[in-house]
């Protein structure tokens, strides 16, 4: 199942490979864009949708591995599939550790490649979803005032209002008021939801957690 709005990038300096793989992608129903060099690819604006990139490892100029590093640096989302005519095993390990989807030695089977592409796009979509959720949660959290944010941070640890008050140096009532506002702003009805939202936003809980049982 192809995620909607998917795009597959193909970056290889060899014409035969470009032609063949492009046709293969097209035949499988994927939208694709072909680039002859890594530089050309970096020049393209990031795609707003799940995307994968099939990258040749050995290219003149910027090679595949360097491209990977570069993308990571730019926090790009493309899921990389490395292909190589050389069969470099060492590179393979490095690439995988840096987060590549797969490493295929040429000549690879058509089914093999398409499976990788599917996985890449699925992963890309997932990543995008995850990111989207986090961004949403973060946005909501940005609505909180700093005091409210502090209170939230203590609430998600499971602390009672009366416990939070002395922590923050305010009255319990104040805490409760803040708590109410937080819940309301964030649109959550329970502490559990709040905790999940905070997790989504990747907020670290604060406070001494002495969970009293």
């Amino acid at each position, binding site marked *: 199942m192809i995620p909607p709005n998917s795009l597959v990038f193909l970056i290889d300096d*060899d014409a*035969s*490979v470009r*032609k*063949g*793989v492009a*046709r*293969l*992608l*097209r*035949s*499988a*129903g994927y939208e694709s864009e072909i680039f002859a060099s890594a530089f050309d690819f970096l020049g393209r604006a990031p795609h707003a949708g799940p995307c994968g990139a099939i990258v040749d490892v*050995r*290219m*003149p100029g910027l*090679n595949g591995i360097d491209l990977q590093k570069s993308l990571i640096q730019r926090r790009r989302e493309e899921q990389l599939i490395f*292909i190589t*005519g*050389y*069969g470099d095993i060492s590179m393979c390990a490095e690439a995988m550790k840096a987060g590549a989807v797969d490493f295929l*030695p*040429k*000549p*690879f*089977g*058509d*089914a093999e*490649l*398409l499976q990788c592409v599917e996985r890449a796009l699925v992963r890309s979509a997932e990543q995008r979803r995850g990111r989207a959720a986090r961004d949403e949660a973060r946005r909501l959290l940005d609505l909180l005032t700093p005091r409210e944010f502090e209170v939230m941070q203590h609430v998600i640890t499971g602390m009672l209002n009366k416990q939070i008050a002395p922590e923050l140096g305010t009255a319990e009532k104040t805490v409760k008021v803040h708590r109410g506002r937080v819940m309301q702003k964030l649109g959550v009805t329970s502490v559990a939801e709040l905790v999940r939202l905070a997790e989504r936003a990747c907020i670290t809980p604060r406070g001494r957690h002495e969970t009293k049982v």
Partner: protein
Amino acid sequence: MSWITLLGSMDAALCFTLAGIYLLVALKQREGWEHLLFSCSAAAAGVIAELELTAVRAGTGGQYGEIIRWAHLPLWVLLVSVVWFVHIYLRAGPRWLVWTICGLRTLALGLNFLSKTNLNFREVTGLRHFSWWGRETVSAPVGVPNPSTLVGQLGLLLILIFLVNVTITVWRRGDRRRALLVSGSASFFITLILGASVSVGWGIIQSPFFVSFAYLGLIAAMGYELSDDLLRAAQLARQFRASQITLRENEQRMDLAANAAGLGMWAWDITRNEIWMTSQGRSLFGFAPSEKLDFERFRSRIHPEDRESVLDARTQSLESGGEYESEYRIALPDGEVRWIAGCGRAELNGKGEPVFMRGVSRDITRRKQGEEALRESEARFRIMADTAPVMIWMSGTDKLCIFFNQGWLKFTGRTLEEELGDGWTKGVHPDDFERCLATYVKSFDARQPFTMEYRLRRSDGEYHWVLDTGTPRFARGGEFLGYIGSCIDISERKLAELDAQRHRTELAHLSRVALMGEMSASLAHELNQPLTGIVSNAGAGQRLIDAGHVTLSELRELLADISADGRRAGDVVRGIREMVRKGETVRQQTNVNDVVRSVVQIVHPDALLRSCEVETSLEPNLPTIEGDPVQLRQVLINLVVNAFDAMHDTPVVDRKVEITTAWSGNGAIRASVRDYGVGISEETRAHLFDPFFTTKAEGLGMGLAIVRSIVESHGGAIAAENVEGGGARFYFTLSPNNPTTG
């Protein structure tokens, strides 16, 4: 005194004087009777003159008659001697007539003395005196004539006839002067006598006998004639003396010349068996200067072995009167042996018998020794030529061969006749023939020595490689005589060479294989690209068909791409196969720039692999050279891969290999491969191209050694240097035409 007496005495004196002179001449000369005869006749005339004088003064008839009687004796002498004188002196007149005359006169003389008185008168009766010319008184006989006088007169007549005959003969002969003078005057004289005898005797004329006066005429003539002869004789004697001197001079000159030339002249008087020799001749034959020489002595000198032939030659010449020539040895008494060349000619006499032989002999010992030495040297040459284990040949100035030794003939198994001229070329291998001939002709025209190698067919039909060396020959004066040369069978060496070459080729091949092995990763990559294309296209095609919506044109395009990729893969495989194939080198006109370009393509994946950049800087109008493109590619790939290896530790940014080609204008092409790697250390540089020398951990060390051998086989040279700015440069030259040494 009376003039008659005077005249008479003068007459007698003259006669006696002449007689005396001619007697002396006759005695001195000793040859020819004419002088003696004339002397007799003159003496007789003198006696008659005396008697006539006496008679003229005779007192009685009887006295007169007696005088006449005795006068007949000198008269006989006179007449006979005159006749004989004329006959011998003028060499004319029939002898029988002479004898007849003599006979008649002898008869007359006999009759004269037999008769009582004398021949003319039977009886003298008296004297008559009369005076002559006034003053003198002379007596004349008167008497009865004797009929026997006729005999005498007949004799006189015959003499006259004889004399006329002689006159005519001599006149006819052309000796007119002598004819007139001698026999003419003699005839006149005899006529007078006859007339006087007849007339006076028969009383017709009154006169005494004056025979002597008539004789004066003859004497005068004779005197003149004989004085002339004397003069001529003296002249001849002078001439003879002069010619003797000249002759002696000539003889001396000839002697000198003969001696100078080492010639000994000799003359053999066959009849007397005496040999005369010049001093040179004597010393030549070892004879003493004054030894008497004859044929036996000469014969004894001849060497026993040659005696027969020499004598035969001489005998032949003697018989035919022709010339003879012979060469023979003589043995001198001291044991020395000399060679003599003698030539001579026999002179035959009128009967065809040999009387004289003259000739010249020459010492030819040195020449004979020279000939002997030459014969020996030739024999030595021939023995050496025929027993030497090499093949020897000689050619003349026309390039055609004139001699082959046994070794050659045995090798080729042909006869000398078949090989002479240019028959030997038939044995040369057809592939080598052109080159062979060209070398031979070129060297021949330049009169230079040469060596060439070619295949020659042996007697068993197999072709063997031979090394032929030829040298020009010159005569002592510098004149060109032709060539002499020798061949040796170098088939073993040639086979070894071919073996070595084969090994070199194999080694080069293995090196190429190793090179390809080194580049296997990149070569595999080169194959993987099109294969990926093919697999992807094929997969796409299947999916498109499965999906159901595919246009035929799309499929066509797809299949075309597959096909192209397949070809591309095939090219790569072919390229590899070419590099790793075995086999002989294939020489063709090669463009070095094309080789560089193909090399760049081949090394491209490897360059990528090692992150090296390859740059070329090629001479635009590079001429083609005769070479093997596969081997040249091998050279460049080797150098480029080495360059990659050298830059292993160089930062990626600086990794560059520069390949350049240039043409130095003199026909040689220069190429270089420059890297920016670690460079070459001094100690490595010395051994760079040595076989089995390597700085790589896993290297065999043959790469550069083979590179060098390939470059050298293309007529070039290779070297390496460190470059300013880092790295090393390997540069080599290739010559456009290189010798086929493989």
